[in-house]
């Protein structure tokens, strides 16, 4: 009987280790340089996305959809198209908001929070946010993707984000999913779809 239990727990152990396996130092280095190479060769990114807001007390996640556009060095347009229209554009140290036709802008030149938000959005879309000074980073292989967990070191950020989790396609080294987990374990998950790099992107896309 004891052998059956041992076998049972061994099987569970194997299952768990299959589900999430830490990367070796060599694997981490190879993976990071693949992501950095992809990033350095990237001039533009366009993608659709689906955002899921998970709150433990809700019956269903709140689902919104949209499109994003990025162009070097730091032009970003993040646009929700369903179930409502809302867009923000980061351009020339300003944040331009269009909330269903109500337009406003914020000067982010001196605003630490918005600057941080801009670099987080840009870096998570690109996948290149391996900053060991800002995060405790751990690397895993799960099924056919890499999972990288970033735990912020900044105490102010930790108050609202306990961790970021980025999923990467093993073959392309591109980010396919970003998850921001709050201290309460509620989270926001963004899944990228139809993501393409280096397509021609007219600068007018970023006009507010």
């Amino acid at each position, binding site marked *: 009987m004891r052998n059956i239990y041992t076998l049972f727990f061994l099987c569970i152990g194997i299952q768990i280790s299959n589900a999430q396996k830490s990367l070796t130092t060599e694997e981490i280095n190879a993976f990071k340089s693949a992501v950095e190479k992809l990033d350095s060769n990237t001039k533009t990114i366009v993608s659709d996305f689906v955002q899921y807001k998970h709150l433990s*007390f809700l019956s269903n996640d*709140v*689902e919104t959809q949209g499109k994003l556009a990025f162009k070097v060095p730091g032009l970003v347009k993040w646009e929700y198209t369903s*179930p409502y229209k809302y867009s923000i554009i980061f351009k020339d140290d300003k944040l331009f908001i269009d909330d269903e036709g109500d337009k406003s802008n914020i000067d982010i030149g001196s605003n630490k929070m918005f600057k941080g938000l801009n670099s987080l959005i840009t870096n998570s879309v690109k996948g290149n946010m391996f900053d060991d000074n800002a995060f405790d980073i751990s690397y895993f292989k799960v099924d056919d993707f890499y999972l990288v967990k970033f735990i912020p070191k900044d105490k102010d950020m930790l108050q*609202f984000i306990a961790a970021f989790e980025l999923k990467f396609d093993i073959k392309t080294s591109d980010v396919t999913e970003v998850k921001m987990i709050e201290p309460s374990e509620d989270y926001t998950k963004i899944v990228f779809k139809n993501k393409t790099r280096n397509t021609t992107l007219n600068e007018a896309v970023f006009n507010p």
Partner: protein
Amino acid sequence: MKRFLILNLCIVTLFASCGIPTIKGLPEYKTEITEYTNPYFSNPTTDYIYKAKIKAYNNDFGGILIIKKIEDHKHRIVFTTNFGNKIFDFELLDNEMKTNFIMKDLDKKIIINTLKRDFQTLTQERNPIHKSFRDNEGKIIFQSKTKKRFNHYIVDEKTQLLLQIINTNHSKEKITITFSKVKNTIAKNISITHNTAPIQIDLSFLNQQQ
């Protein structure tokens, strides 16, 4: 004589300013109902998800307001940015409010109390009726007493729909909540107007099933 006139003038002014404008001059309405039930946030199986636009003191905020009845007399109210970051997360139980989270910049007593009153007025389900009135346009007004104020539930007599909640003190209308495009006890549009401060909240329902 002069002193008498001044005293009279003061008394007249005082009485004139004391009336609640919402029910001023309206005849009382006889009803056997002792409690008015606000139907809009009363279904514990519904996730009430609204796109929110808030204008407060020349600042504009956009985001998503999520309301859910989690127990009898208890609502969870969460406001997030469009990106999903929480701005605040409250639990309202009758007159008490528990703050699960609020952004540092908003963590001020005056802001929390304003939000508490707004959401209490919006979601409080069972309200004992103090007095009832009827206006000339077929609207019944159920007046309910809160700690220091009154809530007036303006109901269409024919359709029985709750059209407005007007929160007042003894002399002024403080908050007006207007419900429109009501379908299956869900108000698709809600506007919350502060009459004595530049705060305006507009909510539109997001149908997640579509």
